[in-house]
């Protein structure tokens, strides 16, 4: 058992508690503590590279105690989350000086990171529920951090939907517990595969699966459940908006939904289609809403919904048993493309919010700007639009190509719709003048703490396309893909039963 595993959660928790104990005047000290421990978390995760296994909390075996579980997919998410988290903390040091009570902000931010790390490592659905709640509650507060009336109304909207989501998730856990008597993910998966013997489609198990998808779908802000997202992202402080749109949504929404769907409900063969369908809807309506959005931040928020849609679409296709049988390479491509797109999404979305923060910091105004930002940060928007050399292009292409490769009619229709949406994304960004290269802000004026994260992430937008190289792909993406997608070899018999 690797002690680094629980430390990934314990370090941010401890940082939060200690920062809360510090007196208010020592803002400098809390800055140093925050940056230091964000670095420690990042190092911690880097040292976990290649480690696969479980950690039994308190030394109790899995069904009795709680277990932490790490594999390549969780590691991939963890490294993304902790490096983005580190950069956002760096950025916040300078940016948050325009807000009051900065050390409380650090407390909340570290609680959110602790919740996210706990979510990613959880090997137990109830434990995952608790840590998703922790991350969610801190994010509700971060949205309302500015205490302006608009941010407060965004926060209450987010809170109400989040509370509903958690109740629905808990209901689903309750049904699973009443049926199988365990909440451990591995055990539940095994029990469900063995005991799955319902004749009708309407049974407690599908009800539970449905509720789980709805609950995590609200957290992931996919289209029917997206109403909290644009408001929340528009009014939150910039680094908090960047954190919520990337690390929170991908881990407590997308990761939790897919992990539960594939590890627990793997015997419900229709579930991947539902997930892929939700993804497709999000892709289409995300770009459509973005076209008519008024402000810059709203446009970006809706576009990020459609990017999440691509991720879910790809992983839904990649997990479906029928695609697996008819066109295995399409399924593999879709899943790999989705994982690649998660990485790209984690890189390009923060840039879009952070450069907005630079403008706010320098001018003190909250109005949105289409003109004032360094040219380098354009990389983010190019990657989002899918302009060729950038990472976003390759991953999107992989997902769309996989749709066509499935061969079936629904796959082709999905591919056509998804590629039309991709073109539409570029068009709507061009219409809003977001793709033009123009600059009126010199890099010199930006404080170093704010400049470094933006420059690094912008560079990574381009560099991430290197992940497509077979050497790196096989090292990082392929193991993660085999970890998340269940193997469907024994499927046909269990369907017949």
């Amino acid at each position: 058992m690797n002690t680094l595993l629980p430390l990934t959660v314990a370090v941010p928790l401890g940082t939060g508690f200690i920062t809360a104990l510090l007196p208010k005047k020592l803002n400098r000290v809390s800055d140093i503590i925050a940056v230091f421990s964000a670095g420690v978390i990042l190092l911690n995760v880097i040292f976990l590279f290649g480690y696969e296994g479980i950690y039994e909390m308190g030394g109790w075996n899995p069904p009795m105690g709680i277990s932490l579980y790490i594999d390549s997919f969780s590691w991939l998410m963890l490294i993304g989350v902790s490096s983005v988290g580190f950069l956002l903390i760096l950025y916040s040091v300078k940016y948050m000086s325009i807000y009051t009570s900065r050390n409380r902000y650090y407390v909340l931010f570290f609680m959110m990171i602790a919740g996210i790390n706990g979510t990613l490592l959880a090997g137990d659905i109830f434990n995952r529920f608790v840590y998703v709640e922790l991350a969610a509650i801190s994010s509700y507060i971060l949205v309302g951090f500015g205490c302006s009336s608009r941010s407060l109304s965004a926060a209450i909207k987010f809170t109400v939907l989040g509370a509903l989501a958690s109740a629905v998730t808990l209901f689903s856990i309750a049904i699973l517990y009443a049926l199988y008597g365990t909440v451990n993910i591995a055990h539940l998966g095994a029990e469900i595969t063995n005991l799955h013997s319902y004749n009708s489609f309407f049974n407690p198990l599908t009800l539970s699966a449905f509720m789980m998808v709805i609950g995590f779908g609200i957290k992931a802000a996919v289209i029917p459940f997206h109403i909290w997202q644009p408001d929340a992202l528009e009014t939150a402080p910039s680094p908090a908006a960047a954190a919520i749109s990337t690390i929170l949504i991908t881990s407590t929404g997308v990761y939790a939904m897919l992990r539960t769907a594939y590890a627990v409900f793997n015997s419900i063969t229709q579930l991947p289609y539902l997930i892929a369908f939700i993804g497709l809807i999000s892709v289409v309506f995300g770009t459509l809403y973005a076209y008519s959005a008024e402000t810059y931040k709203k446009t970006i928020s809706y576009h990020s919904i459609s990017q999440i849609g691509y991720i879910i679409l790809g992983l839904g296709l990649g997990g479906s048993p029928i695609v697996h049988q008819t066109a295995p390479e399409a399924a593999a491509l879709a899943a790999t493309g989705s994982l690649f797109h998660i990485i790209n999404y984690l890189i390009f979305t923060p840039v879009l919010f952070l450069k907005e923060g630079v403008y706010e910091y320098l001018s003190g105004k909250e109005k949105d700007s289409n003109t004032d930002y360094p040219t380098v940060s354009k990389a983010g928007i190019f990657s989002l639009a899918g302009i060729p050399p950038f990472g976003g292009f390759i991953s999107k292409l992989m997902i769309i190509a996989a749709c066509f490769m499935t061969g079936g009619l629904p796959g082709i229709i999905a591919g056509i719709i998804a590629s039309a949406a991709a073109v539409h994304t570029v068009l709507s960004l061009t219409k809003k003048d977001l793709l033009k290269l123009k600059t009126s802000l010199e890099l010199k004026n930006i404080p170093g703490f704010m400049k470094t994260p933006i420059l690094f992430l912008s560079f990574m937008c381009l560099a991430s396309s290197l992940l497509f190289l077979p050497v790196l792909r096989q090292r990082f993406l392929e193991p993660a893909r085999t970890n998340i997608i269940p193997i469907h070899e024994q499927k046909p018999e269990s369907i017949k039963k």
Partner: protein
Amino acid sequence: MKNRSLITVVISRWVSPFIFLYGIYIILYGHISPGGGFPGGVILACSFILALLARGKNAALKRLPYGLAKKLDASGALVFLSLALSGIFFTGVFFSNFLQKLMPGKPLQLISGGTILIINIAIGVKICASVFLIILFISVLRIRKDKEIQTMEEN
């Protein structure tokens, strides 16, 4: 301050020590009878909340000052976390009940269950401070005539 009825003031002054005592009982005997850190902590907080509601902000803050409550809130959680971490130190496993393994007490006695008793006390203190703070914030927030918001925290 508002006019407070003499009956509420006197009765609340009489009752709140008993509520406090009951809360302590619920916390300490949480591992051998129904109860535990959570309900016990809320009951402890209730004795302060009663003072807050019946006799006003100052009477409650005299018993549990604001700064102390904030410190107790964070340090209770910190004690819990450090007990979990000391599990690594003593037995090599996070969250192991090392006291129970090293020197098991006699079951059904007060001193039994190893770290469970300590965690119960830490959680009790923490929850007491938290719930008191929540109610304090809600009841202190007022808008004066000049639209200045009165809160506990100055910026």
